[in-house]
């Protein structure tokens, strides 16, 4: 028969342990986003245009290639970076260039940005450049939104157009 003091000891120790276990299993709370703010997420995965145009190979160049690798065209795989600009009520929220993925820089450029903003009525404009051009953008879209606190507003770019949800 176990000694009574050990049973009492277990009760005391396990009660304290249970209190700690129960408390820290979901407390204290953690605030990782200001509850007064909304959040805009800009995210896309987009394959931009190739950096260089395809070029027809000369017969000499084709002949210089291994027989099993001969092809009429040379198409460099590398893509241009994707440039994105986002403005809210005329103020720039984001202007950033996204490099293509992959060792040969031939994959899609991937973006994932989180921007906390004040709630309220806003005009959002997004522009995207995915070509070799030096000026301007290839795509542009805008939306008037009324953001509420804690709202998550997502801007995606799929099938050559901006998606808002």
């Amino acid at each position: 028969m176990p000694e009574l003091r050990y049973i009492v000891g277990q009760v005391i120790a396990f009660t304290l342990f249970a209190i700690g276990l129960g408390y820290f299993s979901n407390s204290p709370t953690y605030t990782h986003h200001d509850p007064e703010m909304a959040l805009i997420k800009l995210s896309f995965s987009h394959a931009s245009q190739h950096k260089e145009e395809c070029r027809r190979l000369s017969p000499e160049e084709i002949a210089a290639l291994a027989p099993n690798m001969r092809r009429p065209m040379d198409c460099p795989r590398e893509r241009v970076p994707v440039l994105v600009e986002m403005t809210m009520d005329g103020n720039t929220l984001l202007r950033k260039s996204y490099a293509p993925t992959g060792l040969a820089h031939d994959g899609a450029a991937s973006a994932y940005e989180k921007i906390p903003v004040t709630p309220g009525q806003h005009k959002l404009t997004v522009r995207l450049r995915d070509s070799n051009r030096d000026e301007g953008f290839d795509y542009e879209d805008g939306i008037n939104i009324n953001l509420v606190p804690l709202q998550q507003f997502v801007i995606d770019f799929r099938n050559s157009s901006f998606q808002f949800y």
Partner: protein
Amino acid sequence: MKKLLRAGFEHIEDGFDVLFGPKWNPFYQLGALGWFYYWIVIISGIYLYIFFDTGITEAYQSLDYLTYEQWYAGGIMRSLHRYASDALVIMMMIHLLREFAMDRFRSSRWFAWFTGVPMLWFVFSAGITGYWMVWDTLAQYIAIATTEWLDTLPLFGEAIARNFLSDTTLSGRFFTLMVFLHIALPLFLLFIMWIHIQRHASPRVNPPLELAAGTFIMLLVLSIAKPALSNAPADLATVPAVVGLDWFYMSIYPLLDYVPGLTVWILLVTATALLLLVPWLPPGQRNPVAVVNLDNCNGCSRCATDCPFSAITMEPRSDGSAYEHEAVVDASHCTSCGICAGACPTATPFRRRSDLSPGIELPDQPIKELREKTITASARLIGNDRVIVYGCQNSLNPEEMAGTGAGVVTMPCIGMLPPSFIDFVLSKKLADGVFLTGCRAGDCYFRLGIKWTDARIAGERDPRLRQRVGRERIGNFWAGLTRRKDFFRELAAFRMRLKNLASSQPEKQPPPAASENDREITHA
């Protein structure tokens, strides 16, 4: 730092010894408690899985059903699942820290340490995938924070956090993946847990029944008093700004808001690598391992049975002897504890006709030397309360013990002491009593030394202490490092008992030291 940590642990454990008693002290059962919590998690998890639906809304609904409509079974199982998982993390972390503090990871013991470290990743990953499956606001936070964190690794072409942009793009297949991971990770964990204890003979995987009952009742009461509940359903159109984290599993997440994710990965991987390398940073001193003297080994296998680290195997005889087997020491497993020498029936100090060379012993601390030390230590003892103290080298300082006027003989582990030495001391009147000390009861540095010693003296395990030896002249106190005062008090009380014995009993001649312990082992 380690000494401080060890002393800190021992002071806390003193308190728990008072509350629980040494047999139930949870600090001596951390690994076993970890196993116990693991099985609670598994059993409750199997029950939850029966009712769990994989789907964006179905997952949440099925858990709500369990929590509210089936609160008496499913709800309690869910809470047990959570709290046992949390308790598992606590046990695991304390176990890790304690093994470090007690220096139980060096030399041949690297294996258990090394295989224990990957468990941290499996336990945390399994826990996080579990929270993810609920698909409430906490799961939403965890899913987004985890995938964003994974995206900081240069592994994924497209950001996987994009899967959680909106409810319209979220795929139900993702829950199937989570269920798979949440089952596969604990199974891998079990496999590693099994490997973790491979080098331990008689591994402690079950806590004492009373302790198991106490901890289970604690979890049950907590489950009823504060059941695990879901938060509001996940809604990807809203940011879950304030979350009640399970801090046992999610302490790392707030860090991700302040430190770049890649830096956190580098920190974690570096910390893991350092933990893995701890046994070799710096490498511990390797003492000579046990050696077998085939001339005196009769293949009785007691050393193999008693070795706490499965370092001895019995192999077919290689010397042409008539005995069937011989003991073979695996040097990579041997921790040089000497428990094998304590188990060897030929390690008897009564041997006179031949040199005292047992079948197995530590080359740097031979049994012959133990006998010489015993005789030397007894030579200066006077009075009718003369005591020989046999102690281990992982507890109290021998010089301090010698300051009490006792003759002190130490060895790597008290389990190295053949019981015939007690008989030898008392029957040869080298002392009036024998006092044994070492690590704390239930927490032998070499795992089983105290347990085997107690059993040998009680006559429950070979080699047994002979019946003729008066047990009233044998005392013990398992002191560890910190119980100095208690040790001296117990030793003084023991000596007082010896004095009383001397005054109450007429002096008797001890029976002749004959029979089994005196017999030489002869070989064909």
